[in-house]
Each structure stands twice: as structure tokens, then as C-alpha cells.
């Protein structure tokens, strides 16, 4: 069974003078362990699609199945709980809670999941080591560079042991070195923990790291190809 399946997903914005079909009849399956990029020009619907798949936004029509479960049937609180246990999020920037240290940001989601303290501490250190930030463990986000902050966000996204990670332009604010570094980490976690990643991007250097590239135009899938990633 696919981890994620979208069936005829459509999102129409009807607020302005013209109707915008931000997502237009998108049917898509993502299997466990995929490393998939959603690409397309600005305004093509990448963010909208990711938000709907992540249960942050509601489609106008169509369905999202996560492990076969229709998430549109969940109440607000159930959906929050569902996200907590099933989805890791990495946003473009300012992902982290400013008053918490790197360590606390990572262990925070596990605290929300009510995991035991020992497990939280162990996994936090493992993950921060994985993203190469063991030495910045007690620093707050304001004391970290943009690239370091995004790496903490990756660690946090994985901390809850989600079914998949959604990342909307995670490298948009990073220089090329930090971008490469972040992609290395994501690719390694994909490989080592078999974690499913779906990320959106404009950046050709990011696109070439993906194993599957889904291209949107005007909310529509115009191509969906498997490729051999550059390493």
C-alpha cells in the first residue's frame, strides 16, 4: 500500500475576481522510502499540494489517503494528533521555537508524543549527531546559522518517527554549500532509516538529487519521472 495516495485532488481559490485552480485533479501515489521532488514554476501549486497532503489545508474536492486512511474524515484535534504521529514537517524558514535550544526543539515533539525521557534524550542526541550539530546542542535558533537551523528542523522532523517527511522548499534560504549539506543529510536518512521524503523546490541542484521528480504546472501534474540521483 502507498504511504500517500491523493485521488483527484483539487483546490480552488475563489476569493479574488478570478477562480484559481491551485491544485487541479492531482492523483498521485508515494511509496515508502521514496525520495521525491515536487517541482514547477512559482505559483504552480507546490505549496498548496504539500499542505493538503500534510493535513494542514483542505482540498475543494478529492481525497488524501495516508496508509489507506482518509484524513479528511478527521476532526481538528484528531488531525493534529495524526500529524504529530505520522508526518514530519520542514518549512522554508523559521521552523524552530525560538525560546528552545536545538536539543529542546528536537525532543519537544517526542514530549508531545509522551515518549519516555530516556528515549527522548537518546534519540535527540542521535539525530543531532546525524545532522552534525552535536556541538550546538544547547544553542538557541538565534545562535545558529540558517543552514544549521534547517538541519535542526530535519532532526526534529524525524524525531517523532513519522511515516514521511514533507519539506516545502527547505533550501530556499540557503547558500549552495548549506544546500548540498542539507541534501546529503536528507539522502542519508532516506537511505539509512528508509524515511520517505517529499520536498518541493525550484533549485536544479536539488532536483538532480531526487529519485523521482513530479512536475506541476498550473496545479496539474505534467510529468512524473524516476531518475538516478547525482551524489
Amino acid at each position, binding site marked *: 500500500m502507498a504511504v500517500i495516495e491523493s485521488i483527484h485532488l483539487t483546490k480552488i481559490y475563489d476569493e479574488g475576481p478570478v477562480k484559481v485552480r491551485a491544485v487541479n485533479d492531482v492523483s498521485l501515489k508515494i511509496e515508502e522510502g521514496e525520495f521525491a521532488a515536487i517541482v514547477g514554476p512559482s505559483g504552480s501549486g507546490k505549496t498548496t499540494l504539500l499542505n493538503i497532503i500534510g493535513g*494542514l489545508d483542505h482540498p475543494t474536492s478529492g481525497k488524501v489517503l495516508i496508509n489507506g486512511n482518509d484524513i479528511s474524515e478527521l476532526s481538528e484535534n484528531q488531525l493534529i*494528533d495524526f500529524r504529530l504521529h505520522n508526518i514530519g514537517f520542514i518549512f522554508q524558514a523559521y521552523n524552530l521555537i525560538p*525560546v528552545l535550544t536545538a536539543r529542546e526543539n528536537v525532543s519537544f515533539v517526542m514530549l508531545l508524543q509522551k515518549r519516555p525521557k530516556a528515549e527522548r534524550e537518546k534519540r535527540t542526541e542521535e539525530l543531532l549527531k546525524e545532522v552534525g550539530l552535536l556541538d550546538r546542542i544547547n544553542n538557541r535558533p538565534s545562535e545558529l546559522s540558517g543552514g544549521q537551523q534547517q538541519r535542526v528542523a530535519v532532526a526534529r522532523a524525524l524525531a517523532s518517527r513519522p511515516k514521511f517527511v514533507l519539506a516545502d522548499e527547505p533550501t530556499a534560504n540557503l547558500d549552495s554549500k548549506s544546500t548540498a549539506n542539507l541534501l546529503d543529510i536528507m539522502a542519508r536518512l532516506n537511505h539509512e532509516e528508509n524515511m520517505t521524503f517529499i520536498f518541493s523546490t525550484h533549485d536544479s541542484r536539488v532536483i538532480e538529487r531526487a529519485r523521482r521528480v513530479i512536475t506541476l504546472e498550473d496545479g496539474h501534474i505534467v510529468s512524473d519521472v524516476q531518475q538516478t540521483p547525482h551524489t
Partner: protein
Amino acid sequence: MNFRLAWRNIWRNKRRTLITTASVFTAVILAILMRSLQLGAYDRMIDNVVSFYTGHIQLHQAGYWEDQTIDNSFEPNDSIYTILQKTKEITGYVPRLESFALASAREMTKGVMVVGIEPEAESTVTRLKEKIVKGRYLTANENAAILSEGLAKYLRLGIGDTLVLLGQGYHGASAAGMYPINGIVKFPSPDLNQRMVYLPLKQAQQLYSADHRATSIVISIDQSKDASVVATELRSSFKGKPIQVMDWREMLPNLVQLIEVDNAGGIITSGILYMIIGFGIFGTILMMLTERTREFGILIAIGMKKMRLISIVTLEILMISGLGVLLGVVLGIPIVSYFHFNPIHISGEMAAAYERFGMEPVFPFSIAASLFYTQALVVLGITLVLAIYPWFRLRKLKTIDALKS
């Protein structure tokens, strides 16, 4: 965790938190000082009359209070005293015979209140004896009088001089007597200070041809606030007997009303103070919510329930105002205690002006515990009411909009 997050959050904007806390602190300490001064003045005004004259509760012949003549006096008997002895809150009781008379000395004459007392027993009920400023107190069997200081001054009488009293006794008998002056008492209440004459009870009964009679039995109890409760209890004990039971509130309606009006003014003033502070706190809440919208979006996205978020924000508001209250109370206690034990005395012309209006030129502060916890509860109440706003706003918050902001 909620607590730690809230605590760290309030220090994200130190300046704003300090300003808000300081404003709450200022309001709390102002309210404490103002109310302490007011309540202290009321306590003093009441105490000046209750503990030097009326006592907490009085018994009279039914109808005496409405028509205060010696003809409405009664003979206290053992059945009355037995009931008083059995009432455990009562710490003392004493009979008195009170009436009006004309006091004269050489060319001066003045209407006075003559009070016949049992000198020793009186001390269990009022603190008259403490107020002797010249000469000495009375003994039961002597023929002597004590004058209040203002009256003595008016009549130009001193220790050893003779006071002449003229009036009407029981059932129309004429009353006349001459009494050497034994002592002078100074009452804090200017009103009492102008018109009181004390005689031993026996002498008063003789003067008014009212042997064995009394106009009142004055009762003291251990907690003055229980006066009305004890009075009610006594009323049922004396049911069916022609005895009137009154507590000090009923005997001093003017004073009680004056206090109520003044007190209402104080409550309104502090209410306005707190309203202003409420707006200040609200402004802080608004800013807090607005600048953190995206962060709230992220928290909800990664799996924090809104209720938890609301409780963190509420906790933050409570911490900010709670800190102000805490500081206000902690600083208020020593200030108020100092002025409670060292009341401010006004002197000179101001003092004379106060006395002309029948007020004592002394400003004691109250240290009633209610003073402090009332402020804490009021601020807590305001804060919780204001916390409805973030609750309302966060419940309505759309995660997706918050993330885009």
C-alpha cells in the same frame, strides 16, 4: 514543560514584560495603600466609639432606643445575667444608667451626657480607664465625677473643682447633684470628648431617683465582626422578654452609612485604576498574539493541540500579572505594617480643621489580610477575563493562515 515555555516566552520581550509587570505592580501597591488607609480609618472610627463608649452590643428595655429617657430604664436581674453568662462569645457585660443633664460651673452651662458606670466592671467592656489624662479613675462608692477633656475645657473646670448637674429623674422627679471632679478623660472621638460626664453607677441612680435601674447593659465580645451574629443569638435567647438587643452597627447608623459611602468611593477609584491596568495587559496580549502567529502555526502543524497552546499563553499572561501582584504585595506588606504601628499624626492647623469636623487627625493603616488577597484576586480575575481573548483567537486560528503570516 508548559510552565518552562511560558516563562521563557515572557522574557522574549523583556522590556514589554517589565513595563506590564510594573504597571500591575503600581496599581496593586496604590490600591493597597489607598484601601489600607481607608479601612484603617474606618476601623479607628469604629473603635473610637465602640471600645470607648457603646461596646459591641447593648441590651435595653424595649422601646428605649426610640425614646431615650430614664423612664424607659429597667432593672437588670439574674435571669438576664444568666443568659449573658451562658453566651460563650461574650467577654464582658456591665450595666449603665445614662441620661441628659445640664452641667454648670460658675457662669458656664452646657447640656451633657451623664453615664453612671460600675468603675471596675466597666473596664471589662470599654477602655475608658486608659483615657484618663489627669487625676484618677472612679471607685464604686465615692461621690465624684470624671469629665471628658473638651467639656472640662469648655466649663473651665479642673481636678478638685465641683461640677453641678441638673436634670429630670425617673418619673418626673427632679435631679440635682454636686460632684467633685476626680479625673479628666480624653476621647479620641471629638464628639464624645465634648459631652461626657461619668459618675459611679450608685451616684447616678441616686441623682436620677432610679435605684437599681439601668438604661443599658453594655456587652463586649471577642471578635467585633461577630457582633451581629451574637446579637441575633441573644435576640432569640430574650425572645418574649421586653428586651431590645442592638449591635454597634444598629446603634451607629450614621457612622455605618458614612463608612459605606466612603468605602464605595474607594472601590470605584480602585476599579478605575484596575480598568486602566486591564487595558495595558490587553495591549500586551494583542502584541504577543500578533507577533507570534506564525510560531503558533508551526506548533499546531507539528502536533501541539490548541488547548495546550491556549494554556501556555494564559500561563504567560498570568505570570506577567502575577509577578506584578507578588511584587505589590511583598512591598505593600512592610509599608502598610509600618504605618499601622506608626500611624501618621497630623498636627497644627490641619489637625484643628479635622477636629472641627469631628474627625481625629490620625491616619492609621489597616493590615487586614483581605486587603492583600483582594488585590491578588481582582488582578487574577481581570487576567482570566482577558485570557478569554487569546482563547477565542487561538481557537479560530487557521493553521494554514498562521503558517503563511
